[in-house]
Protein backbone atom coordinates (compact mmCIF):
# COMPACT_ATOMS: atom_id res chain seq x y z
CA UNK A 1 0.00 0.00 0.00
CA UNK A 2 1.70 3.12 -1.25
CA UNK A 3 1.21 6.32 0.76
CA UNK A 4 0.82 8.43 -2.35
CA UNK A 5 -1.48 10.89 -0.61
CA UNK A 6 1.18 11.67 1.96
CA UNK A 7 4.00 12.28 -0.44
CA UNK A 8 3.34 15.98 -0.92
CA UNK A 9 2.99 16.55 2.79
CA UNK A 10 6.16 14.57 3.31
CA UNK A 11 7.88 16.83 0.84
CA UNK A 12 6.59 19.90 2.65
CA UNK A 13 7.47 18.64 6.10
CA UNK A 14 3.87 18.72 7.16
CA UNK A 15 3.48 15.18 8.47
CA UNK A 16 3.30 14.24 12.09
CA UNK A 17 6.47 12.61 13.34
CA UNK A 18 4.90 9.16 13.38
CA UNK A 19 3.49 9.40 9.88
CA UNK A 20 6.72 10.85 8.61
CA UNK A 21 8.70 7.99 10.02
CA UNK A 22 6.43 5.44 8.45
CA UNK A 23 6.53 7.12 5.05
CA UNK A 24 10.30 7.36 5.31
CA UNK A 25 10.50 3.67 5.97
CA UNK A 26 8.32 2.96 2.95
CA UNK A 27 10.38 5.20 0.72
CA UNK A 28 13.53 3.38 1.70
CA UNK A 29 12.01 0.23 0.29
CA UNK A 30 9.90 1.46 -2.63
CA UNK A 31 11.44 2.72 -5.84
CA UNK A 32 8.09 3.67 -7.31
CA UNK A 33 7.31 5.99 -4.43
CA UNK A 34 10.78 7.47 -4.62
CA UNK A 35 10.17 8.27 -8.24
CA UNK A 36 6.78 9.76 -7.46
CA UNK A 37 8.31 11.86 -4.74
CA UNK A 38 10.99 13.16 -7.11
CA UNK A 39 8.33 14.07 -9.65
CA UNK A 40 6.39 15.99 -7.05
CA UNK A 41 9.55 17.72 -5.91
CA UNK A 42 10.36 18.66 -9.50
CA UNK A 43 6.87 19.99 -10.01
CA UNK A 44 7.07 22.10 -6.87
CA UNK A 45 10.42 23.51 -7.98
CA UNK A 46 9.05 24.43 -11.37
CA UNK A 47 6.12 26.22 -9.76
CA UNK A 48 8.51 28.08 -7.49
CA UNK A 49 10.67 29.03 -10.48
CA UNK A 50 7.88 30.66 -12.45
CA UNK A 51 8.72 34.22 -13.47
CA UNK A 52 6.79 36.59 -11.26
CA UNK A 53 4.32 38.86 -13.02
CA UNK A 54 4.81 42.50 -12.11
CA UNK A 55 2.13 45.15 -11.90
CA UNK A 56 2.09 48.02 -14.32
CA UNK A 57 1.39 50.62 -11.64
CA UNK A 58 1.62 51.14 -7.93
CA UNK A 59 -0.97 49.17 -6.04
CA UNK A 60 -0.40 50.70 -2.63
CA UNK A 61 -3.47 52.75 -1.76
CA UNK A 62 -2.85 56.37 -0.88
CA UNK A 63 -4.10 56.41 2.66
CA UNK A 64 -1.75 59.04 4.03
CA UNK A 65 -1.84 62.73 3.35
CA UNK A 66 1.02 65.19 3.65
CA UNK A 67 0.99 66.95 7.00
CA UNK A 68 0.62 70.35 5.41
CA UNK A 69 -2.56 69.44 3.57
CA UNK A 70 -5.12 70.12 6.25
CA UNK A 71 -3.58 73.41 7.44
CA UNK A 72 -3.28 74.57 3.86
CA UNK A 73 -6.91 73.83 3.30
CA UNK A 74 -7.89 75.79 6.39
CA UNK A 75 -5.79 78.71 5.27
CA UNK A 76 -7.23 78.50 1.78
CA UNK A 77 -10.77 78.57 3.11
CA UNK A 78 -10.10 81.65 5.20
CA UNK A 79 -8.22 83.33 2.37
CA UNK A 80 -11.14 82.68 0.09
CA UNK A 81 -13.54 84.21 2.58
CA UNK A 82 -11.31 87.23 3.08
CA UNK A 83 -10.92 87.73 -0.64
CA UNK A 84 -14.65 87.57 -1.24
CA UNK A 85 -15.20 90.02 1.57
CA UNK A 86 -12.65 92.39 0.06
CA UNK A 87 -14.30 91.99 -3.32
CA UNK A 88 -17.65 92.99 -1.90
CA UNK A 89 -16.12 95.82 0.11
CA UNK A 90 -14.24 97.28 -2.80
CA UNK A 91 -17.24 96.91 -5.03
CA UNK A 92 -19.47 98.65 -2.53
CA UNK A 93 -16.96 101.41 -1.88
CA UNK A 94 -16.40 102.04 -5.53
CA UNK A 95 -20.09 102.43 -6.04
CA UNK A 96 -20.37 105.23 -3.48
CA UNK A 97 -21.28 108.55 -5.10
CA UNK A 98 -18.48 111.06 -5.32
CA UNK A 99 -18.42 113.72 -2.66
CA UNK A 100 -16.87 117.07 -3.40
CA UNK A 101 -13.87 117.75 -1.19
CA UNK A 102 -13.07 121.41 -1.31
CA UNK A 103 -10.00 121.50 0.88
CA UNK A 104 -7.60 119.21 -0.87
CA UNK A 105 -4.53 120.54 -2.58
CA UNK A 106 -5.22 120.13 -6.24
CA UNK A 107 -8.76 120.90 -5.52
CA UNK A 108 -9.54 121.74 -9.10
CA UNK A 109 -9.79 118.09 -9.90
CA UNK A 110 -12.77 117.01 -7.88
CA UNK A 111 -14.90 119.98 -8.79
CA UNK A 112 -14.76 119.53 -12.53
CA UNK A 113 -14.83 115.87 -11.85
CA UNK A 114 -18.16 116.25 -10.17
CA UNK A 115 -19.56 118.13 -13.07
CA UNK A 116 -18.04 115.63 -15.43
CA UNK A 117 -19.94 112.97 -13.57
CA UNK A 118 -23.22 114.54 -14.53
CA UNK A 119 -22.31 115.01 -18.11
CA UNK A 120 -20.44 111.85 -18.90
CA UNK A 121 -22.36 109.18 -17.22
CA UNK A 122 -20.78 105.91 -18.16
CA UNK A 123 -18.27 107.21 -20.67
CA UNK A 124 -15.02 105.39 -21.18
CA UNK A 125 -11.59 106.79 -20.65
CA UNK A 126 -10.06 106.55 -24.03
CA UNK A 127 -11.66 109.63 -25.39
CA UNK A 128 -10.24 111.69 -28.14
CA UNK A 129 -9.23 115.06 -26.80
CA UNK A 130 -5.93 115.15 -25.07
CA UNK A 131 -6.13 118.45 -23.40
CA UNK A 132 -4.87 120.38 -20.52
CA UNK A 133 -5.67 119.84 -16.96
CA UNK A 134 -9.35 120.12 -17.34
CA UNK A 135 -10.03 117.27 -19.67
CA UNK A 136 -7.49 115.31 -17.87
CA UNK A 137 -9.49 115.06 -14.69
CA UNK A 138 -12.58 114.79 -16.80
CA UNK A 139 -11.32 111.68 -18.40
CA UNK A 140 -10.39 110.34 -15.12
CA UNK A 141 -13.64 111.38 -13.61
CA UNK A 142 -15.71 109.72 -16.26
CA UNK A 143 -14.31 106.32 -15.59
CA UNK A 144 -14.69 107.11 -11.96
CA UNK A 145 -18.36 107.51 -12.59
CA UNK A 146 -18.32 104.42 -14.64
CA UNK A 147 -17.02 102.47 -11.73
CA UNK A 148 -20.25 103.11 -10.01
CA UNK A 149 -20.90 99.57 -11.02
CA UNK A 150 -18.00 97.21 -10.63
CA UNK A 151 -18.38 96.04 -14.17
CA UNK A 152 -17.24 99.41 -15.43
CA UNK A 153 -13.88 98.86 -13.92
CA UNK A 154 -13.16 96.87 -17.02
CA UNK A 155 -13.46 99.95 -19.15
CA UNK A 156 -10.43 101.58 -17.76
CA UNK A 157 -7.55 100.15 -15.90
CA UNK A 158 -6.07 102.33 -13.28
CA UNK A 159 -3.09 101.67 -11.17
CA UNK A 160 -3.85 100.98 -7.58
CA UNK A 161 -3.57 103.64 -4.97
CA UNK A 162 -0.71 101.79 -3.46
CA UNK A 163 2.30 103.06 -5.39
CA UNK A 164 1.53 106.53 -4.24
CA UNK A 165 4.82 108.33 -3.83
CA UNK A 166 6.18 107.49 -7.26
CA UNK A 167 3.14 108.80 -9.02
CA UNK A 168 3.66 112.32 -7.98
CA UNK A 169 6.57 112.60 -10.32
CA UNK A 170 4.56 111.68 -13.36
CA UNK A 171 3.65 114.60 -15.49
CA UNK A 172 0.19 115.40 -16.61
CA UNK A 173 1.14 114.87 -20.24
CA UNK A 174 2.27 111.41 -19.64
CA UNK A 175 -0.84 110.71 -17.72
CA UNK A 176 -2.96 111.93 -20.57
CA UNK A 177 -1.14 109.76 -23.06
CA UNK A 178 -1.59 106.72 -21.01
CA UNK A 179 -5.21 107.49 -20.46
CA UNK A 180 -5.75 107.30 -24.15
CA UNK A 181 -4.38 103.79 -24.24
CA UNK A 182 -7.41 101.97 -23.06
CA UNK A 183 -6.53 99.43 -20.48
CA UNK A 184 -3.04 100.68 -19.86
CA UNK A 185 -1.93 100.66 -16.31
CA UNK A 186 0.22 103.74 -16.20
CA UNK A 187 0.70 105.45 -12.93
CA UNK A 188 -1.86 108.05 -12.26
CA UNK A 189 -1.20 111.72 -12.01
CA UNK A 190 -1.27 113.93 -9.01
CA UNK A 191 -4.87 114.74 -9.50
CA UNK A 192 -6.07 111.25 -9.62
CA UNK A 193 -3.95 110.51 -6.62
CA UNK A 194 -5.45 113.37 -4.72
CA UNK A 195 -8.85 112.24 -5.74
CA UNK A 196 -8.18 108.80 -4.37
CA UNK A 197 -6.68 110.15 -1.23
CA UNK A 198 -9.94 111.73 -0.29
CA UNK A 199 -11.51 108.87 1.44
CA UNK A 200 -14.78 110.48 2.16
CA UNK A 201 -16.56 108.15 -0.11
CA UNK A 202 -14.38 109.06 -3.08
CA UNK A 203 -13.07 106.02 -4.80
CA UNK A 204 -10.07 105.73 -7.07
CA UNK A 205 -11.40 106.25 -10.55
CA UNK A 206 -10.08 103.09 -12.14
CA UNK A 207 -9.89 100.25 -9.71
CA UNK A 208 -9.30 96.70 -10.82
CA UNK A 209 -9.32 95.49 -7.31
CA UNK A 210 -12.87 94.26 -7.07
CA UNK A 211 -12.10 91.76 -9.75
CA UNK A 212 -8.71 90.84 -8.43
CA UNK A 213 -10.26 90.00 -5.09
CA UNK A 214 -13.00 88.01 -6.73
CA UNK A 215 -10.50 86.04 -8.76
CA UNK A 216 -8.46 85.34 -5.66
CA UNK A 217 -11.56 84.31 -3.78
CA UNK A 218 -12.59 81.86 -6.47
CA UNK A 219 -9.09 80.48 -6.76
CA UNK A 220 -8.78 79.88 -3.03
CA UNK A 221 -12.23 78.37 -2.92
CA UNK A 222 -11.32 75.93 -5.68
CA UNK A 223 -8.10 75.06 -3.88
CA UNK A 224 -10.04 74.40 -0.68
CA UNK A 225 -12.47 72.20 -2.56
CA UNK A 226 -9.82 70.00 -4.13
CA UNK A 227 -7.76 69.76 -0.97
CA UNK A 228 -10.92 68.81 0.88
CA UNK A 229 -11.61 66.04 -1.60
CA UNK A 230 -8.11 64.71 -1.15
CA UNK A 231 -8.54 64.75 2.62
CA UNK A 232 -11.87 62.97 2.45
CA UNK A 233 -10.64 60.29 0.07
CA UNK A 234 -8.40 58.70 2.67
Amino acid at each position, binding site marked *: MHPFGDLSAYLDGALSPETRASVQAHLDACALCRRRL*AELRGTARL*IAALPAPVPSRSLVPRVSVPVWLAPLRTFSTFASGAAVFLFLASAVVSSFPRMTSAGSAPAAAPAPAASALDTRGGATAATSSPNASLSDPEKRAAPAAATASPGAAFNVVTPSPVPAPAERTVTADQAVKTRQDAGSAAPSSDVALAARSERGGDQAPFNPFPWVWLALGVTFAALSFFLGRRLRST
Partner: protein
Amino acid sequence: MGPDAGGATEALLDRARRGDARAFERLALELERPLYRHAARMLGHDDAEDCVQDALLSAWKSLASFEGTSFRAWVFRIVTNRALDRLRSRRRHPELPLDPPAEDDDSAGWAEPAAPGPELADLASDREALRVVEEALAHIPADQRAALLLRDVEGFAYEEIATITSTEIGTVKSRIHRGRLAVRNILISRGWRGSSG
Protein backbone atom coordinates in the same frame (compact mmCIF):
# COMPACT_ATOMS: atom_id res chain seq x y z
CA MET B 1 10.32 38.87 3.90
CA GLY B 2 12.95 36.98 5.83
CA PRO B 3 13.27 36.73 9.56
CA ASP B 4 15.57 39.73 9.65
CA ALA B 5 12.78 41.99 8.56
CA GLY B 6 10.52 40.73 11.31
CA GLY B 7 11.47 43.36 13.88
CA ALA B 8 11.09 46.27 11.53
CA THR B 9 7.80 44.90 10.30
CA GLU B 10 6.52 44.54 13.82
CA ALA B 11 7.34 48.15 14.57
CA LEU B 12 5.62 49.30 11.40
CA LEU B 13 2.61 47.17 12.20
CA ASP B 14 2.31 48.67 15.67
CA ARG B 15 2.38 52.15 14.23
CA ALA B 16 -0.09 51.26 11.52
CA ARG B 17 -2.51 49.80 14.03
CA ARG B 18 -2.40 53.09 15.90
CA GLY B 19 -3.45 54.93 12.77
CA ASP B 20 -0.12 55.79 11.16
CA ALA B 21 -1.07 55.75 7.51
CA ARG B 22 2.49 56.10 6.30
CA ALA B 23 3.56 53.04 8.27
CA PHE B 24 0.76 51.08 6.63
CA GLU B 25 1.85 52.26 3.21
CA ARG B 26 5.34 51.00 3.87
CA LEU B 27 3.99 47.63 4.97
CA ALA B 28 1.85 47.49 1.87
CA LEU B 29 4.83 48.36 -0.30
CA GLU B 30 6.71 45.32 0.98
CA LEU B 31 3.79 43.08 0.11
CA GLU B 32 2.83 44.66 -3.19
CA ARG B 33 4.83 42.36 -5.47
CA PRO B 34 4.07 39.05 -3.73
CA LEU B 35 0.39 39.92 -3.54
CA TYR B 36 0.29 40.83 -7.19
CA ARG B 37 2.01 37.69 -8.40
CA HIS B 38 -0.42 35.62 -6.34
CA ALA B 39 -3.46 37.50 -7.66
CA ALA B 40 -2.15 37.37 -11.23
CA ARG B 41 -1.74 33.60 -11.10
CA MET B 42 -5.15 33.24 -9.55
CA LEU B 43 -7.05 35.65 -11.79
CA GLY B 44 -4.93 36.56 -14.74
CA HIS B 45 -3.35 39.95 -15.24
CA ASP B 46 -6.53 41.84 -16.04
CA ASP B 47 -8.19 41.84 -12.66
CA ALA B 48 -5.15 41.27 -10.53
CA GLU B 49 -4.19 44.92 -10.09
CA ASP B 50 -7.62 45.99 -8.94
CA CYS B 51 -7.87 42.94 -6.73
CA VAL B 52 -4.66 43.76 -4.89
CA GLN B 53 -5.36 47.46 -4.59
CA ASP B 54 -8.87 46.85 -3.26
CA ALA B 55 -7.55 44.25 -0.86
CA LEU B 56 -4.89 46.60 0.51
CA LEU B 57 -7.42 49.35 0.98
CA SER B 58 -9.73 46.92 2.72
CA ALA B 59 -6.83 45.83 4.93
CA TRP B 60 -6.18 49.43 5.94
CA LYS B 61 -9.81 50.03 6.78
CA SER B 62 -10.17 46.88 8.83
CA LEU B 63 -6.73 46.99 10.41
CA ALA B 64 -8.26 47.43 13.83
CA SER B 65 -9.78 43.97 13.56
CA PHE B 66 -6.45 42.30 12.80
CA GLU B 67 -5.46 40.38 15.88
CA GLY B 68 -3.19 37.68 14.59
CA THR B 69 0.55 37.66 14.42
CA SER B 70 1.19 37.34 10.72
CA PHE B 71 0.18 40.48 8.90
CA ARG B 72 1.38 38.94 5.67
CA ALA B 73 -0.87 35.91 6.02
CA TRP B 74 -3.77 38.18 6.91
CA VAL B 75 -3.40 40.30 3.79
CA PHE B 76 -2.92 37.20 1.65
CA ARG B 77 -6.16 35.94 3.06
CA ILE B 78 -7.96 39.08 1.95
CA VAL B 79 -6.45 38.86 -1.53
CA THR B 80 -7.17 35.14 -1.89
CA ASN B 81 -10.77 35.57 -0.82
CA ARG B 82 -11.26 38.42 -3.26
CA ALA B 83 -9.70 36.43 -6.05
CA LEU B 84 -11.89 33.42 -5.38
CA ASP B 85 -14.97 35.62 -5.22
CA ARG B 86 -14.02 37.18 -8.50
CA LEU B 87 -13.54 33.79 -10.10
CA ARG B 88 -16.92 32.63 -8.85
CA SER B 89 -18.62 35.67 -10.26
CA ARG B 90 -16.89 35.17 -13.57
CA ARG B 91 -18.24 31.70 -14.06
CA ARG B 92 -21.19 31.50 -16.36
CA HIS B 93 -22.25 28.24 -14.81
CA PRO B 94 -22.07 28.69 -11.09
CA GLU B 95 -22.99 25.09 -10.46
CA LEU B 96 -19.52 24.02 -11.49
CA PRO B 97 -17.65 23.18 -8.33
CA LEU B 98 -14.40 24.91 -7.63
CA ASP B 99 -13.04 21.58 -6.53
CA PRO B 100 -13.69 18.29 -8.29
CA PRO B 101 -15.39 15.58 -6.25
CA ALA B 102 -13.14 14.01 -3.68
CA GLU B 103 -11.09 11.11 -4.93
CA ASP B 104 -9.14 8.48 -3.20
CA ASP B 105 -5.68 9.93 -3.13
CA ASP B 106 -4.15 6.50 -3.41
CA SER B 107 -5.97 5.69 -6.59
CA ALA B 108 -4.51 6.00 -10.00
CA GLY B 109 -4.16 9.63 -10.92
CA TRP B 110 -0.58 9.34 -11.84
CA ALA B 111 -0.24 9.63 -15.58
CA GLU B 112 2.46 7.57 -17.13
CA PRO B 113 4.85 9.04 -19.65
CA ALA B 114 4.29 7.85 -23.20
CA ALA B 115 7.93 7.94 -24.13
CA PRO B 116 11.16 8.82 -22.44
CA GLY B 117 11.78 12.51 -22.13
CA PRO B 118 13.80 15.08 -20.17
CA GLU B 119 13.87 14.72 -16.45
CA LEU B 120 11.52 16.98 -14.59
CA ALA B 121 13.98 18.10 -12.00
CA ASP B 122 16.43 19.45 -14.57
CA LEU B 123 13.99 21.66 -16.38
CA ALA B 124 13.61 24.59 -14.02
CA SER B 125 15.48 26.83 -16.41
CA ASP B 126 13.68 25.54 -19.46
CA ARG B 127 11.24 28.10 -20.66
CA GLU B 128 9.07 25.46 -22.23
CA ALA B 129 8.60 23.57 -19.02
CA LEU B 130 7.74 26.75 -17.18
CA ARG B 131 5.25 27.67 -19.82
CA VAL B 132 3.59 24.27 -19.46
CA VAL B 133 3.48 24.70 -15.70
CA GLU B 134 1.96 28.15 -16.02
CA GLU B 135 -0.67 26.83 -18.36
CA ALA B 136 -1.35 23.85 -16.14
CA LEU B 137 -1.84 26.05 -13.11
CA ALA B 138 -4.46 28.05 -14.94
CA HIS B 139 -6.47 24.89 -15.56
CA ILE B 140 -6.54 23.25 -12.18
CA PRO B 141 -9.40 24.08 -9.83
CA ALA B 142 -9.09 27.45 -8.10
CA ASP B 143 -8.94 26.08 -4.57
CA GLN B 144 -6.11 23.73 -5.46
CA ARG B 145 -4.35 26.50 -7.31
CA ALA B 146 -4.60 28.84 -4.33
CA ALA B 147 -3.19 26.25 -1.93
CA LEU B 148 -0.42 25.27 -4.31
CA LEU B 149 0.65 28.86 -4.96
CA LEU B 150 0.59 29.71 -1.28
CA ARG B 151 2.80 26.72 -0.58
CA ASP B 152 5.26 26.59 -3.47
CA VAL B 153 5.50 30.25 -4.45
CA GLU B 154 4.86 32.11 -1.22
CA GLY B 155 6.28 29.53 1.16
CA PHE B 156 3.47 29.50 3.70
CA ALA B 157 3.24 26.57 6.08
CA TYR B 158 0.24 24.26 5.97
CA GLU B 159 -1.15 25.83 9.15
CA GLU B 160 -0.93 29.30 7.68
CA ILE B 161 -2.56 28.16 4.45
CA ALA B 162 -5.38 26.64 6.51
CA THR B 163 -5.92 30.04 8.12
CA ILE B 164 -5.65 31.91 4.85
CA THR B 165 -8.18 29.69 3.12
CA SER B 166 -10.38 29.18 6.19
CA THR B 167 -10.11 25.41 5.98
CA GLU B 168 -8.59 22.56 7.94
CA ILE B 169 -5.08 21.30 7.52
CA GLY B 170 -6.37 18.02 6.10
CA THR B 171 -8.12 19.93 3.32
CA VAL B 172 -4.97 21.94 2.64
CA LYS B 173 -2.93 18.78 2.40
CA SER B 174 -5.41 17.22 0.02
CA ARG B 175 -5.61 20.27 -2.22
CA ILE B 176 -1.86 20.70 -2.43
CA HIS B 177 -1.34 17.08 -3.28
CA ARG B 178 -4.03 16.97 -5.92
CA GLY B 179 -2.92 20.26 -7.39
CA ARG B 180 0.68 19.14 -7.69
CA LEU B 181 -0.43 15.84 -9.11
CA ALA B 182 -2.52 17.57 -11.75
CA VAL B 183 0.38 19.78 -12.81
CA ARG B 184 2.71 16.81 -12.80
CA ASN B 185 0.31 14.86 -15.00
CA ILE B 186 0.09 17.66 -17.53
CA LEU B 187 3.86 17.88 -17.64
CA ILE B 188 4.11 14.15 -18.17
CA SER B 189 1.56 14.28 -20.95
CA ARG B 190 3.69 16.89 -22.71
CA GLY B 191 6.60 14.55 -22.77
CA TRP B 192 8.41 15.29 -19.57
CA ARG B 193 9.52 12.50 -17.45
CA GLY B 194 10.22 12.53 -13.75
CA SER B 195 13.67 11.70 -12.51
CA SER B 196 14.37 8.11 -11.77
CA GLY B 197 14.66 8.83 -8.08
